[in-house]
């Protein structure tokens, strides 16, 4: 445990170089999205009675914002678990340098995952602050949207980090984003309820970890979680199970890679 924090320290030291730009973009991203989609597009959506009915009486901004919070965590997690892992194992090989010290492969995995948790917490907290500024949060429970978003992000970060450790070039990362992250971003109930999808496709959305994250986040932001606490618990259980499995997989792939040299 104590050893793993040294890995976190390295990541923080590296982050110091770029933290200003990083924090600014963490703020601008939700501002721009909520303005364009939530307010701009939302004005049209809210004029349609049918749409308001489909959204359960919510404004489009209220519907969109918590979904976007979870989706943003997913995107940030995917980025943090691809290129930095490849840098450590292949480009600059600093993880190999660490492994020559008392630090073990598991410490390296855990340290990096903890660092991703810290980054996602920062991003989700800023996003939630922006939501409150836009009046997009109906319930004080939105505070719990931050850990929910982090959990959602980690359900992506852990298996993607494990996959990244098996790669020697970043070519397949494009496929991860193009065929994984982008479709999930669009079709996991972030921008419209999945009930709007054809009935045959709907069950596929249930397989999306992001859908569980979006549902959880929305239930917290709107305060509707008390109506279906068991369902929320099920979402948490699904995401947590992926995190556990992804972490175990990352232990294996990172260790295999470090031992091979």
């Amino acid at each position, binding site marked *: 445990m104590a050893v793993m924090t*040294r890995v976190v320290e390295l990541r923080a030291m590296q982050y110091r170089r770029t933290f200003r730009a990083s924090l600014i973009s963490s703020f601008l991203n939700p501002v721009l999205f909520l303005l364009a989609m939530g307010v701009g597009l939302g004005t049209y959506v809210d004029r349609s009675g049918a749409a308001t009915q489909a959204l359960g009486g919510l404004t489009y901004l209220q519907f969109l914002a918590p979904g976007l919070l979870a989706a943003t965590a997913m995107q940030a997690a995917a980025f943090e678990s691809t290129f930095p892992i490849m840098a450590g194992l292949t480009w600059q*090989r600093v993880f*190999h*340098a660490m492994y020559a010290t*008392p630090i073990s492969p598991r410490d390296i995995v855990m340290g990096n995952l903890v660092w991703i948790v810290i980054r996602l917490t920062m991003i989700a907290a800023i996003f939630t602050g922006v939501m409150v500024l836009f009046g997009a949060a109906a319930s004080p429970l939105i505070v719990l949207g931050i850990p929910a978003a982090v959990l959602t992000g980690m359900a992506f970060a852990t298996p993607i980090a494990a996959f990244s450790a098996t790669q020697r070039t970043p070519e397949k990362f494009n496929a991860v984003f193009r065929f994984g992250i982008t479709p999930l971003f669009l079709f996991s109930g972030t921008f419209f309820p999945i009930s709007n999808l054809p009935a045959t496709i709907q069950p596929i959305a249930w397989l999306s970890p992001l859908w569980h994250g979006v549902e959880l986040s929305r239930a917290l932001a709107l305060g509707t979680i008390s109506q279906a606490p068991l369902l929320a618990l099920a979402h948490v259980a699904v995401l947590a199970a992926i995190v556990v499995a992804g972490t175990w997989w990352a232990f294996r792939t990172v260790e295999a890679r470090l031992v091979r040299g």
Partner: protein
Amino acid sequence: MPDLPVSADTALIRARGLTKRFGEFTAVDAIDFDVARGESFGFLGPNGAGKTSTMRMIGCVSPITEGELEVLGQDPRADGPRIRSRIGVVPQQDTLDTELTVRENLVIYGRYFGMSRAECGRRADELLEFTQLTERANDPVEPLSGGMKRRLTIARALINEPDLLLLDEPTTGLDPQARHLLWDRLYRLKQRGVTLVLTTHYMDEAEQLCDRLVVMDKARIVAEGSPRELIERYSTREVTELRFAVGVQDSLDGQLDGLAERVELLPDRVLLYADDGEAAVAAAHQRGLRPETVLVRRSSLEDVFLRLTGRSLIE
């Protein structure tokens, strides 16, 4: 961290039947060796001989397949992190963090060993001085020359004041001046009693730095001794190199027989192994041989390697 149970008279490294296999491929084939405290020990051999695999097993980052290995009196299988806390590693490939400055690279590395920030800073400054990098302390790593990066990697490996320093081809790819500066620093470490274990495919490097070395070829140890002993055992005092005009060498046939203790035909020259090189030259002239150039030199580890394996070290 408590000291490891190593007494002055026991070997820092002890290997018996040490073997490393990757699937069907045997990288290290049942080798035996000991390294004593304060000794400077080398693995000499061509690329692919198994040197790096051996170093990685000693460094406790690659599990042994078979045999026995003891490092600092401990078993790498059970005590990897504890052993690694007492050794310093200079890998073949630079693994410096280009997102950090020169000094930060040292400080964070000290942190990996659990040293306090103050201690890391103090050691970092000392080591920058020792490796002549003080002026570059706050510069980024990327624009440094190859020699400077190597020196920084050596400084980094010394941050924890290791009992044992492992260097995998420390000067490969460096220009002669950078190599000599590096050798000088390593020599100073040796003088201070740091145990050095290095791999190299440079004969001059092995002769400069190693008290004792093993010659590796095709995953096995083919000879062991001090550079001087190896030369005495496997070569003659002097070597005469004859170069002939293009095409002439192939038509010499038996004309070289008996000119020296041993005659070696290389693609571009002929080597005559004899204790008296000038006498060998005279004998060749008497036979009417007219080489274009003649060089009489002292025997080197290159000659030892050629004798042992029939091949040049660097092809």
